[in-house]
């Protein structure tokens, strides 16, 4: 028996999310008195693979090959399914991100394994295996019993603390048979140098209350100061003031940073569905009755355009102390 984690890599590197997955798996493995195995697909250097041991992995199944740089859902599903059989996995854990959402449902069918998706906490019980998950876009939580022998979980990013372990993972080369690639990638377009919205621990977001795209200076300055990513509400991206990739909300990105600073955002239910998992929310808005204040921990009633420069000044002063 084992708990198996699929750790995606980004140009051969893991990121905090990868270690969150292993930390989470390690905790579940403790509950079940078993070990964590990891499956890594694509060219990742040994030093990078060794980092997984630091968070509790006992073994890494390493599948190398430059063809694995892009995702083919069927090929990756085959590999992870074979790894699950090889490791006699009772639980398979993936990230609740683009690739995890693409692979977990396929694996569920392949392994006849119940899927609990978008999980942010440890299971509430091991027998019957029960997890809590958000439903109705965050308006409620459901208790879900996963009834099959093998279970699959997808974990929400930034929902589980890293836990370091003193463990050295054994790295085993694994070369399962796979079918041909059917998804052909013609081109890749990547933004560079910015903190990705889903990875960010602090997010500074602007809404219609910012009045025009020329007023985004203070938001960017504040984000730069805090090492934060920038985001926006749907009307702002629909108007083309900011790129669609910044839209947070029900149909945009769903994020869970430690701190979400909402400036000039009224907090429509669709917006809150995307940000309500943030650990702390600061709201700056002119309307004291705006729904954002019901979701926020700290509120400032005032014009974001006037409040933001003062906020930035106060942070600089606090930092210089």
């Amino acid at each position, binding site marked *: 028996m084992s708990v198996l984690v699929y750790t995606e890599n980004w140009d051969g590197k893991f990121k905090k999310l990868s270690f969150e997955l292993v930390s989470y798996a390690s905790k579940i493995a403790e509950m079940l008195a078993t070990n964590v195995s990891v499956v890594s697909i694509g060219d990742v250097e040994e030093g990078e693979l060794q980092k997984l041991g630091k968070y509790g992995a006992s073994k890494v199944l390493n599948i190398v090959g430059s063809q694995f740089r*892009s995702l083919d*859902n069927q090929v990756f*599903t085959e590999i992870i399914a074979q790894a699950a059989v090889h490791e006699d996995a009772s639980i398979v854990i993936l990230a*609740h991100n*683009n690739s995890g*959402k*693409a692979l*977990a*449902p*396929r694996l*569920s*069918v392949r392994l006849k394994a*119940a*899927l609990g*998706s*978008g999980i942010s906490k440890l299971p509430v019980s091991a027998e019957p295996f029960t997890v809590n*998950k*958000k*439903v*109705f876009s*965050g*308006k*409620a*939580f*459901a*208790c*879900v*019993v996963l*009834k099959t022998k093998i279970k699959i979980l997808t974990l929400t990013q930034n929902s589980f603390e890293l836990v370091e372990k003193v463990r050295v993972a054994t790295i085993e080369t694994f070369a399962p048979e796979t079918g041909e690639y*059917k*998804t*052909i*990638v*013609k*081109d*890749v377009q*990547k*933004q560079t140098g910015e903190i990705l919205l*889903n990875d960010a621990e602090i997010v500074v977001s602007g809404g219609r209350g910012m009045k025009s795209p020329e007023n985004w200076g203070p938001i960017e300055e504040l984000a730069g100061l805090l090492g934060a990513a920038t985001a926006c509400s749907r009307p702002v991206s629909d108007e083309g003031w900011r790129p*669609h990739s910044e839209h947070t909300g*029900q*149909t*945009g990105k769903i994020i869970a940073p430690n*701190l979400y600073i909402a400036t000039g955002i009224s907090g429509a*239910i*669709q917006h809150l569905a995307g940000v309500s998992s943030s650990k*702390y929310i600061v709201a700056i808005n002119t309307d004291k009755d705006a729904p954002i*204040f019901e979701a*926020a*921990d*700290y*509120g*400032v*009633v005032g014009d974001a355009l*006037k*409040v933001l420069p003062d*906020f930035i000044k*106060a*942070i600089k002063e*606090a930092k210089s102390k």
Partner: protein
Amino acid sequence: MKIAICLGNVPDTTTKVKFINETELDKTGVQWIINPWDELALTRAMELKEDTGNSVNLVTVITVGTKETEPTIRKALAIGADDAIRINSEPTDVYNVAIQLAEVIKTKDFDIIICGIESSDFNGAAVGGMVAEILGLPSVSSVSRLSISGSEIEMDREIDGGKEIVTIKTPFVAIVQKGIAKEPRIAAMRGIMMARTKPLVVVEPVSCESLTEYSGFVLPQPKASCKMVDPGNMAELVSLLQNEAKVL
């Protein structure tokens, strides 16, 4: 070219959800809508069909649901789908739904099967991938653009911090998200009239187990009230974030 859209029937986004005995959704007063992502998928399918530059000639919507879902299905027909299939079953879990959909899809020769990336009720983000695996078809997920030129399909697939331009041979399952269409299309009066006479075929479900069971629902704890800070005292806000929340 034939397109199938897997269509979910969900409570309107603004619904205040309530539960009966913490075990089932209280449907009293709930307005039902097409799942927002499926609605965007349908909109894109209609755009493709109207564009004479490609060979899309049929858009079919398929729903798993009881008779109560028919107004939502008719809405999809009013928006422009050519026909509809309703699988007469109350959805129990996502695996069961995917099995039912796959059972119907395999009897037809669809070229592209489109599913929204998740549903706004159970947020499982799984139907599309499961349908593809059951049918042994390739799938592309996180699709934010889908174009057809001649027989070539070209898509944008969102990845962390960017996108890939990908292509794939039909038949396949496209799992789509924001960007696939700009604004969901609203049915015009003519469409609503025409929808009444469009075919809506009802088929009985196959027997199939569920892999999961929803044993209870709870509403989130109400959040402690928001601490208000005077706009003239930003030093206090910084201090709260540093010392109380410990996030700066």
